């Protein structure tokens, strides 16, 4: 790692782990905890979508895995009596396993076809949750106990915030590591030309499945964490709109940057909350800003940094 990166990392860790809680303490804006917890969790799910972008697939189906992960955790906790902290990683593994089964056929699709099939997948997940007996159908699963440890905290919000942020840091560190590894370079070759990659002996099926299942793992744990916070889950807890938002987060942050989804989620989710004051014009202002942003920075927010660096090198 270069020195700049280490300083950047230290600054980031300091901000999320120390500065933000201090700021909230000082300003008394306790509601920011939940908002930022959501941002952290949604950016984990978006990170998964980003990873599928990385192998050249537009994924609009992450909501399906978030829902599956949420239900898995809810069922493990309420019916099997498992501790939530065990159910959380299991939910991720469960969704990863499901994604291998689903991914095998559909990862052969490309471009808009893959995008649309994943979009349909979100709806299929919702309808499956409605139809299965184990998910309790339309009535959802409610009154799920708080995870042990957090339940005994005096400030539940702060507890969830730290857990979510810790998960986010681990996920993005793993992503960074992955992207800069040999597998990451191979994935990038898939993004550019699959036939070529295949012809030089890359096992593209295997790579795609690996990337897709990691992506779904992220979706699953994000969904499971949300269930712990809301203590309930319904078939509509994650729906098509969520899947689309996960994808938009990646676009907004910038597809060329590992930390794009984090920034994109922060801006898109927090932006909506900050516009709370505009009342009935909230959606109008929000969408106008989105369009403007796109006109100014069509390659995502983080492209500012890139272009300034390139400009500096001239």
């Amino acid at each position, binding site marked *: 790692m270069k020195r700049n990166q280490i300083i950047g990392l230290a600054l980031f860790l300091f901000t999320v782990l120390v500065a933000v809680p201090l700021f909230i303490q000082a300003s008394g*804006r*306790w*509601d920011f*905890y*939940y*908002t930022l917890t*959501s941002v952290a969790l949604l950016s984990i799910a978006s990170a998964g979508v980003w990873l599928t972008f990385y192998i050249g697939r537009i994924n609009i189906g992450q909501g399906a895995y978030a829902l599956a992960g949420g239900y898995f955790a809810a069922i493990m906790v309420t019916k099997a009596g498992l501790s939530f902290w065990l159910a959380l990683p299991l939910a991720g593994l469960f969704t990863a396993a499901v994604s291998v089964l689903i991914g095998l056929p559909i990862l052969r699709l490309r471009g808009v076809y893959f995008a649309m099939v994943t979009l349909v997948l979100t709806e299929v997940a919702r*309808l499956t949750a*409605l139809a299965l007996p184990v998910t309790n*159908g*339309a*009535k*959802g699963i*409610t*009154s799920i106990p*708080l995870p042990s440890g957090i339940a005994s905290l005096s400030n*539940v919000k702060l507890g969830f915030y730290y857990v979510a942020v810790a998960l986010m840091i681990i996920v993005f560190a793993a992503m960074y590591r992955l992207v800069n590894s040999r597998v990451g370079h191979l994935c990038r070759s898939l993004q550019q030309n699959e036939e070529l990659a295949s012809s030089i002996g890359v096992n593209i099926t295997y790579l795609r499945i690996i990337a897709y299942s990691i992506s779904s793992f992220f979706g699953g744990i994000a969904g499971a964490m*949300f269930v712990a*916070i*809301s*203590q*309930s889950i*319904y*078939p*509509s*807890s994650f*729906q098509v*709109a*969520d899947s689309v938002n996960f994808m938009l987060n990646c676009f907004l942050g910038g597809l060329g940057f590992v930390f794009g989804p984090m920034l994109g989620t922060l801006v898109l989710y927090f932006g*909506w*909350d900050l516009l*709370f004051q505009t*009342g*009935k014009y*909230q*959606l109008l202002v929000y969408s106008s800003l989105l369009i403007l942003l796109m006109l100014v920075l069509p390659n995502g927010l983080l492209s500012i940094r890139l272009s300034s660096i390139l400009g500096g090198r001239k």
Partner: protein
Amino acid sequence: MKRRSILKSVAAAASASAFISVSSLAAWAANDTLKIGFVGVTSGPAAAWGTSNVRSMQTRAAWLNETGGVTIGDKTYDVEIVTFDDQKDPKRAIAGMEKMAQEGIHYVVGPNVDDGAAAVRPVAEQNGIIYFPYAFPKELYAPPAGNAVLGMIANYQSGPAIYKYLKENKGVNKVAFVAANESDPLSQRDGGITAAKALGLEVVSDNVTYQVDTTDFTPVLTPVIQSMPDLLVLSGVAPANAPQLIRSARELGYQGLISTETAQDATVLQEGAGELANGFISVGGASTPEIASDTMKEFVDRYTKMFGEYNDESNTKVYALEYIVETLKANPAAIDNVDEFKKTMDTFSAANPYMKGDSHLKYVGTTSFGQKRQVFVPMVVNEFKDGKFETLFIAEVD
């Protein structure tokens, strides 16, 4: 910017804000503000539900403030409505409830759907917020839950009353149910089926569902109509779908009765189905001319003036704010203490301004929830006729 100019602009801003606050103080003769929250859906496909909530709250608040505000204990307050659009997303609804807690609000109307109402429960209980959802799951209102108050009549309360009436008066024997494949309507359908079977009615079709975005209901309804019911129940039907379903059923030659347990809007029915909607049975608040008081009529006038068009769903939704304000009047200590509010709920009673005659505002729900966690709204069962609702019968919930 140089330091001096920064200082200058800060000073200017400070004096401007001081001026604004002084002038607003002068205008509102030292009334404090009582903030009441709303967390629900005011955009997207279900916008109609939340919008009718927000608008009736805003209409009533403006009216109260115009007449000098509300006096609670020895203080007079102006009512301010703080709204949050959750986009029908339970995750957003939690953020909305957090925002309400941040604003120091203890009384919130909404959310509009089951998943949102269940998701905000932990936040409401942790922050001492009483909320009035428009969602039916019993565990929201039955112990150990205690902070939710059902803002309307649940389908498992109105359904049996309607079926019983129709069985006795219209000779209904065979019932069919149709619902959208979403949580709320499906739960309501299951509740309806249980109620119908308990009354000894024969359920001839109970599993046909539709996507909410259906543009043609003929294929959906064809098998239902073939089962020859006397009564077709549109469980939890959204106001947007009701006219299309009615129209398709009638065009397929269905002659029997059609009913639902949710509130509908007369204009929407008239525009969407016209005279085919005649005879359609739904549940409303104090809407029909037979029972609406002058206050109700004035409310409708003010709403129409403020927003251009009235929504009949507001007939029920006008009540939640009224209950909050009146209960606070009855026990001023509840203004920042929901435990006081809960205590008052058991004994509270006040005149119902929206209904003619000797009707009272009180909390009910003992039969359904084991504790008083429901507002008492007259269960007015309406029949649609030529663009208007007519009262079929009135029942009560306990």
